Every structure is written in structure tokens, then in C-alpha cells.
């Protein structure tokens, strides 16, 4: 028996030795080094088609929202292919399911870049998923187009942000409330990054603009118990509620809100995460007359939007609503197409260099890419939910607002980052 245990110990030592020496022998770049880091993944542009990655949650809790974005992306791919593709090459969409799980997003991003060798990737919804894939795109120097309004404070060299940053949605919404004299705000949000950061900005804005935040509450994601929050809102003496709740929780919140006898007249709610799709699922009876802040509505006038809505409904069914993130996703492919064609190449560095000043007559109106921030000039629009479930615009910023993800142009925001 003793010989046996010696032999086993020997084996163990062997494994440790092999493992350790292999690990040490394999050591590569130290953290400070810049020379050998990164291995620009080679996108495959040799054939008649190029692959584009679509990275959305097709399962799990976020599938509700992300499937619509995925649909809009597929629609754009189809249209672009029908009109001859990009640089003469047809696009082949490769869908990967992020499954509403952030590490999975990172894994799938890597699959798209390394395995499928896509020329660019479109997708992600939550900030958490974007944060999870950001290092992957940076490591492999590959492009991601992110289509959802978000909390700003980010500027990755390998991400284009086609949704609104805070100064194109939150700040204009505050301007609007201030103009209407609604100065005492109650902040209600889901407990995650976007609402918390948005509320931080709102508080800074309020302090500088003579407004007051009379209360602030967060509900865990998926929460359906809003009795306490509504009680607090009622007692706080606010003029308006600034709502950053995530889609699902809105249903429970607005049901409770109405049960407590609060209405759009007595205490208006301005929501930044409720689009047409959500209005439908919450129920118009609960939302009638409430406010939203976006850059696009299904009702936004213009030939480009008429065409987009018609094409979407032709592809996915009559009565299917279109929304802001869907529109931002849809235009992200067109913006990328324009950049590639201007660069005359799929090469990431050249595409990035060509991005500044790209213009598009989008469903939301004219948009322009700001090369410095890799964000997009967008028009801010405040809408009102009608009894028919559609949102109609009641105010807009007049012209596209220059993206300012770090709010550098606002003196009150100097303490924020």
C-alpha cells in the first residue's frame, strides 16, 4: 500500500509540475505592455457574403424586449440585401442568444467574433450585457452597434451608440418638466444601473435648476409589490413622478398607482422605459395621459417612418408596434452600411475613421454620427400616451441634440464623473 501512495504522490507532483511549468512557460504580456496585447480578430470578407452578428436575448427575462430589436435588425438586413448589399456583398445575419445572462453575452460575443468572423455585431439591450461584452469587443478590436438609450458615462472605441445618451433623453425630459412648472419630483426606478445613474443626474440637475427631489425609491427587478412606493409617492407632495422602472415592473406599478386614485391629471408620471410595446402590455386604461421621453414614436411624422412602420408590420404582423429601441437598431445597420461605403472597406479602423458626419434620413428624423463620441445626434421627443395606446408627441427639442455622454457641456454635471 505504501508504494502505491508514493507513486500517487509522484503522479500528483508531476501534474502540479507540468501544470505550473506549462502555465509559467506560457506567460505572455504583462499588464503594462502594449506591444503584443490584443489580436485583432480577422473578419472574413473573402466571399460573396459577409456575416453580421446579431446578439440579443432570445430567451430568458429580457427576451420580451430584445426579440423586437432582433426583428428590426433582421428587417434592416433583408432590406439592405434587397437593395444590393454592402460593397457588393450580401449580408448573412448570424444570431446568437444572450439568454438574458451577462456572462453568456460575453461568451456569445466571442463566438461571433472568433468563430463566425463577423464584420460587425448589432445588439445588446441592458447596460449589464453591454458592460459584459465591452472588453471582448475591445480585446478583438471588433465593432458593436448598441441600439438602446442608456445611462451614458461610457465611450468605448469599439462601440457605436445609436440610442440616446442622457443628454438626449433625461435632460430634455427635465427641461420639459421645468418648463411646465412641475418642480417637485419623486424618483421611482428599478434597482439596476440605468435608473440609479439617471437619478444621480436628475438630482444634480434639480439642484442647479431650483427643482426638488422629494423622494427616491428602487424596486428589485421583476418586483410586483408597489404598495409601499405608491403610499410614499402619495404622501410626498410631489408634482410629478420620474419613472425609470424596467418594463415588467411598470404593469404592477401603474395598477397600484391607479388603485391609489392617482391619475395623469393629479400627479403625472414621466417614464423613460415605456415604449409602444410596453403600453400595449401594461394596458392603456392605466397609462392614459401619462408622459414618456424618447427620440422616436410610431406616430413620428415623415416618409421614412411611414415606410419603416409599413415594412415592419408587413414582415411581423399588422398592429405590431414599432418603438424607439427597434428604430435605433434598424438605423444602426444603415449607419454602419453608410460608414463602410464611405470607407470603401470593412476594415474596423477605416470604418471608424469614416464614421464622423455620416447622415441618415431616419424614421425618427435626421440623425448624424458624431465621430468623436461614436454616438448619434438625435432629436429629443416628449410624448403622451393616448387612449388608443399610441404615443403622440407633445414637445420636441427642435433640432437634433449633440450627444454628450459625459455631460461635459453642462456645468451642473461637473461633479458626476
Amino acid at each position, binding site marked *: 500500500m505504501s508504494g502505491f501512495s508514493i507513486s500517487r504522490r509522484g503522479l500528483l507532483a508531476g501534474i502540479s509540475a507540468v501544470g505550473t511549468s506549462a502555465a509559467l512557460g506560457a506567460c505572455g504580456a504583462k499588464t503594462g505592455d502594449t506591444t503584443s496585447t490584443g489580436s485583432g480578430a480577422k473578419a472574413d470578407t473573402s466571399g460573396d457574403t459577409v456575416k453580421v452578428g446579431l446578439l440579443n436575448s432570445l430567451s430568458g427575462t429580457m427576451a420580451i424586449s430584445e426579440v423586437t430589436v432582433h426583428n428590426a435588425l433582421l428587417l434592416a438586413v433583408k432590406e439592405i440585401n434587397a437593395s444590393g448589399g454592402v460593397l457588393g456583398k450580401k449580408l448573412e445575419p448570424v444570431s446568437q*442568444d444572450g439568454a438574458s445572462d451577462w456572462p453568456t453575452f460575453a461568451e456569445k460575443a466571442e463566438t461571433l467574433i472568433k468563430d463566425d468572423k463577423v464584420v460587425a455585431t448589432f445588439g445588446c439591450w441592458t447596460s449589464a450585457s453591454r458592460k459584459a461584452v465591452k472588453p471582448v469587443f475591445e480585446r478583438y478590436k471588433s465593432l458593436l452597434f448598441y441600439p438602446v438609450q442608456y445611462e451614458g458615462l461610457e465611450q468605448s472605441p469599439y462601440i457605436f451608440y445609436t440610442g440616446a445618451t442622457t443628454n438626449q433623453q433625461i435632460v430634455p425630459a427635465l427641461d420639459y418638466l421645468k418648463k411646465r412648472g412641475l418642480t417637485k419630483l419623486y424618483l421611482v426606478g428599478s434597482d439596476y444601473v440605468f435608473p440609479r445613474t439617471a437619478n444621480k443626474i436628475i438630482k444634480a440637475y434639480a439642484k442647479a435648476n431650483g427643482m426638488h427631489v422629494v423622494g427616491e425609491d428602487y424596486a428589485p427587478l421583476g418586483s410586483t409589490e408597489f404598495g409601499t412606493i405608491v403610499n410614499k409617492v402619495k404622501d410626498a407632495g410631489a408634482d410629478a413622478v420620474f419613472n425609470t422602472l424596467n418594463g415588467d415592473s411598470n404593469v404592477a406599478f401603474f395598477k397600484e398607482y391607479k388603485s391609489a386614485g392617482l391619475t395623469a391629471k393629479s400627479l403625472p408620471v414621466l417614464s423613460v422605459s415605456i415604449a409602444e410595446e410596453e403600453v400595449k402590455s401594461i394596458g392603456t386604461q392605466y397609462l392614459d395621459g401619462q408622459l414618456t421621453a424618447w427620440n422616436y414614436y410610431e406616430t413620428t411624422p415623415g416618409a421614412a417612418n411611414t415606410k419603416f412602420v409599413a415594412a415592419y408590420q408587413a414582415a411581423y404582423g399588422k398592429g405590431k408596434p414599432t418603438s424607439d429601441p427597434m428604430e435605433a437598431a434598424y438605423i444602426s445597420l444603415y449607419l454602419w452600411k453608410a460608414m463602410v461605403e464611405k470607407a470603401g472597406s470593412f476594415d474596423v479602423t477605416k470604418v471608424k475613421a469614416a464614421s464622423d458626419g455620416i447622415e441618415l434620413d431616419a424614421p425618427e428624423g435626421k440623425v448624424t454620427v458624431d465621430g468623436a463620441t461614436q454616438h448619434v445626434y438625435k432629436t429629443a421627443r416628449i410624448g403622451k400616451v393616448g387612449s388608443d395606446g399610441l404615443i403622440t408627441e407633445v414637445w420636441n427639442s427642435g433640432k437634433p441634440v449633440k450627444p454628450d455622454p459625459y455631460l461635459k457641456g453642462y456645468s451642473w454635471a461637473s461633479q458626476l464623473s
Partner: protein
Amino acid sequence: MTTTTTPAPAAVTPPPPSLPKRLRAPAALALGAVLLLGLAPAVLSDFRLNLLAKYLCYAIVAVGVSLAWGRGGLMVLGQGVFFGLGGYAMAMHLKLTDAAATGETLPDFMQLYGTGETLPWWWKPFADPAFALAMTVLLPMTLAALLGFFVFRRRVKGAYFAILSQALAAALSIWLIGQQATTGGTNGLTDIHGFFGYSLDDPVNQRMVYLIIATVLLLLMTGARRLFTSRYGELLVAVRDSEERVRFLGYDPANVKLVAYVLAAGTAGLAGALFVPAVGIISPALIGIVPSIGFVIGAAVGGRASLVGAVLGAIAVAWTQSTLSDAFPAAWTYLQGLLFVVAVGFLPGGLASLGAVLRRRRTATATTAPTTGERP
């Protein structure tokens, strides 16, 4: 009540006559070492190897699950908590060194979402690599020891223990989400570039991380194997099968279970710590109830009481999920559900026991098979 003839998880599998029993384990270990340390790095692309590294992290958790659940009968449905604690301990250190490398005092997310002033006191010690490394294992083990001490002493029943573990998993993940300024909230800790001075952006270093993980797994399997065959391993099986009887022999079963539970927690913590450099993120999504249940499915499919079965099961399930969920997300969910039902319900010994079950079926026609009824 009708007696079920469902096969019980085989604690002691009879060896095949060809290979002497005492040489089997070292031979299997050597084979594993050749496959994981030699063959895999040679034939797999960087990307595949990195995926394998992630699966091996799950396999490390499965080693602990096999010990606590397979041998000890403890339904460990809170492994996500320990995995998370280990992962956060490691990620906190890496975020701090990343920040220091760029001349900052605060990790990036704290500057964005926090008050942006000072580092919270409980972050500070994690700047020390030795402390952080120790914490990846000690933190989960301490929590497990505290919880286990009370739970096992009060003779809390298995069902209670399972539900308690889940409540704890839910509580920790909600808490982490709520403390965005200091924990990164739902985002978790991500965007990690360095690993003890080495850049994770360099594929060579990713291979190094893989080799470390593979080595840790092999060492842990060896250790677990040794524990299984030790007197303690036998006692643990005895406690699983008849706790009361063990008590009348003069042992305190609470202590016996506590050791297995704490070791399993430490293993999960280590897995979480290794997951961070391999995948580059740790988040509350890996801690809650759902992932905690996910951690045991691999072991259940492969065979909870068989160490190799549990490890291979964990790798296979993770691999299937990765491959299948792309093409058929719906099909994967059905398959996952079906795996639970079939593996746990009808093959409690897992795939590792399939051979034995089939053999028994065949002989059952000739002679009456001995029925090993399950303990109620």
C-alpha cells in the same frame, strides 16, 4: 407504501476485473492530466480553450457537489452563494490592481456610479493579493461553517436546508444588486484586464489561466478521491444513509456534515475565483436561485456519487448548453428540464450508473435482483 426498486446512487462501484482496483484511480488521473494539460491546449483554438476553461470552473464546483450531495446527501442548493463570494473576492482584487495600473484609486464603476470619493473600508484589504486569494476560499468556508453549524446542530431537515439555501442565495443576489455604488449592481464586476500582473487581453495569458484551472481541477479531484476513500469518506456515506445510527455509535453527525459542506463551499469559492479571469465577469446573475440549482444539474446528470461522473456531467451539460442554445434556444430549455426529470428521477446514480443499471436489468430476468430500498 409500495417499495420502489429504483437504483440508488452507487457509493462503491465494483471495479472491472481487468485493471487492479488500486491502479484505477491513478490511471484515470494520469489520463485526465494528459487530456486536459496536453491534448486540449494542443488541439483547441484559443476561443474553444477559453470556453473549456469556463466549463472546468463548473466542474470544480461539481467536485464539491459530489462530496456534499453525492456522498453526504446534503442538498447543496446554495452553491451560487459560495461561487459568488469567491468570484467577487477575486474580482475585487483584480479591479483594484487594474485601477492602480492606470493610476486611479477607485475602480472605474465606482467613479461612475458611486460617490466617487473614497474606497469603502471593506474593499481596502482586497488590494493585497495574498489576502484576496485567501478570501476566495475562506469567505465561502466561513459562511458555510456559520450556516452549517446552526443548521446541522438543530437537525434541520433536508427540505428545510434546501429552501434555506435558496433564501440565502436570493438574499445575497438582491443585496449585491442593491449596492450598486460598491458592488457594481446588476452589472457585477466586469471589464477586467489584468491577472496578477499579466494582461488577460493576451491570448497566451488566457492559455495560462486555462492551465491553472485545469491543474486546480485535477488536484482537487485527487484530493476528493482521497477523501472519498478515507475513513471520513466512509463515515460520510454512513451519515447520509442513516444519520441516527451514526449518532448511536457516538459520533456527532452535525460535525461530519459540516466538514463536507464547508469543503464544498470552499471548492465553489475557488471555482468562482478562477471563473473571473477565465470569463472576465462576476455578477449577481451567477448567484441567485436559478444558477444555484444549475450548479447541481451537471453532477446529477453525470452521477452525483461518482466523482468522475459529476465532473464529466458538469462539463457535458455546460457544453451542450453552449452549443444547443444558439441554434435552438427553446429546445435547450426543454432538454434541460428533461435532463432534470430523467437523470434525477429515473437514474439517480446518473450516467455513471447506467452500465450498472443495464447489467442489473439483464440479470434481473434470470435471478431476482437484490432490492436496495431508499431510506425514507
